[in-house]
């Protein structure tokens, strides 16, 4: 398990200039399942689908807005103060989100709690600002923010779904099983976050390994046939 995780973290974040930046963030370099970034909200906030989606959308908003601004002024920022500038802009976007969430719904605000201000220190937001928005044009940067944000939301929702269904027997508050469901309390508690994340990572690792094995088998079958032909000749 741990091997898998470390291999993702070392292998992943290359800056891909080609390919759609949106799809890239959504799936190919999914922030949670591939890059394993932003673990704090991933583990803490995903105990229900509603919380997971709210957190994901709040992060998406922060990333799109701040990457647009950062990319706009990227040529004016001296290298020495770029991190400070990114943080100032991110912190602004996070404060704005804080107000907006409160204005939309107080219960969601209470559920997300301290994790909204913590978006600013989420390693995902700063990493993309440094690796992408600080170097790429405005539209591409905003698309990258949107893709990464939706990828993050998707991953959080997948975790939230496992945890809510097992931990409370509901999905978005609707009972999936009978009302008499015995909740697996563990999944609502922080360790449940670690366990569900591990299950998803295991699933993706197994899936990747299987498809890689199939690909090599196909190649081997082809070369094997070629070899046989040669031998006959």
């Amino acid at each position, binding site marked *: 398990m741990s091997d898998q995780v470390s291999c993702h973290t070392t292998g992943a974040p290359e800056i891909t200039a080609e390919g759609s930046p949106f799809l890239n963030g959504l799936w190919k370099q999914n922030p949670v399942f591939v890059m394993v970034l932003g673990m704090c909200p991933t583990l803490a906030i995903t105990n229900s689908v509603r919380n997971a989606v709210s957190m994901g959308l709040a992060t998406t908003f922060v990333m799109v807005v701040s990457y647009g601004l950062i990319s706009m002024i990227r040529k004016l920022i001296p290298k*020495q*103060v770029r991190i400070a*500038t990114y943080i*100032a802009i991110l912190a*602004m976007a996070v404060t704005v989100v804080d107000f907006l969430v*409160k204005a939309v719904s107080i219960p969601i605000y209470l559920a997300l709690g301290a994790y909204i201000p913590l978006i600013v220190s989420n390693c995902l937001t700063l990493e993309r600002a440094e690796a992408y928005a600080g170097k790429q044009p405005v539209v591409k940067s905003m698309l990258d923010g949107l893709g990464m944000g939706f990828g993050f939301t998707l991953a959080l929702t997948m975790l939230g779904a496992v945890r809510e269904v097992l931990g409370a027997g509901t999905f978005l508050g609707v009972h999936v099983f009978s009302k008499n469901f015995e*909740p697996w309390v563990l999944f609502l*508690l922080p360790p449940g976050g670690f366990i569900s994340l591990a299950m998803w990572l295991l699933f993706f690792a197994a899936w990747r390994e299987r498809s890689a094995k199939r690909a090599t088998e196909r190649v081997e079958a082809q070369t094997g046939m070629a070899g046989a032909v040669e031998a006959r000749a």
Partner: protein
Amino acid sequence: MSTLIPPPAAPQPPGWRMVRLLGTVSLICGILIVGTNLATSARIRHNQEIIMRDSVAELLPGIQKQIIYGVQASGDLKILPGLEEGGQRLFAGYDGSGRLIGIVIESNARGYADLISAMYSYSPEKQAITGFKVVDMRETPGLGDRVRSDPDFLKNFDDLDVRIVDGKPVNPVKVVKHGSKKNVWEIDAISGATISSRAVGKLIGTSVQDVLPVVRKNLERIERGE
């Protein structure tokens, strides 16, 4: 990639340029934040008031009008214009004819995981607690969080005797083992969630001791609604 020649150093930009840039960025960010705050503050206040009003209405059915009092350090009451943060607040509820139905009191205590904050309604007529509602908590799901939802536990607060004589409760609120409640001032604990149940007992007990004497002292004033 590992060359021994260091990369050519970027020319050091003048200090004033960096200060100017950071200053401008901060200024713009500041304006945006203040702008959002101004744009959303009315909505946020409205949301908070709705939540508070709903909670109070849940505890005091039939409520038509409410007045919020703040308890001063001197032990006097002051009418609050809105939901000011901090301090002990009392929500007095009146029916259509302006008669006092009951008073909702906020309180909190340390539970198993974190602070449990809750509200309870007090009926001056019956000299008893008539309802209890948890506002926020972090108790263990499935065990401690039953203090919010367990119907048997909540039944304790339908009529919990908290008579005050000479500024002191006659029978201090007491949490007893599940199934052994004998008196109207006792709280029957949830089996398997003793710590959370005791925290609720403490939450009510201390509040009854500290706040109810103030309420009794100022009762006529609250009844008149001034």
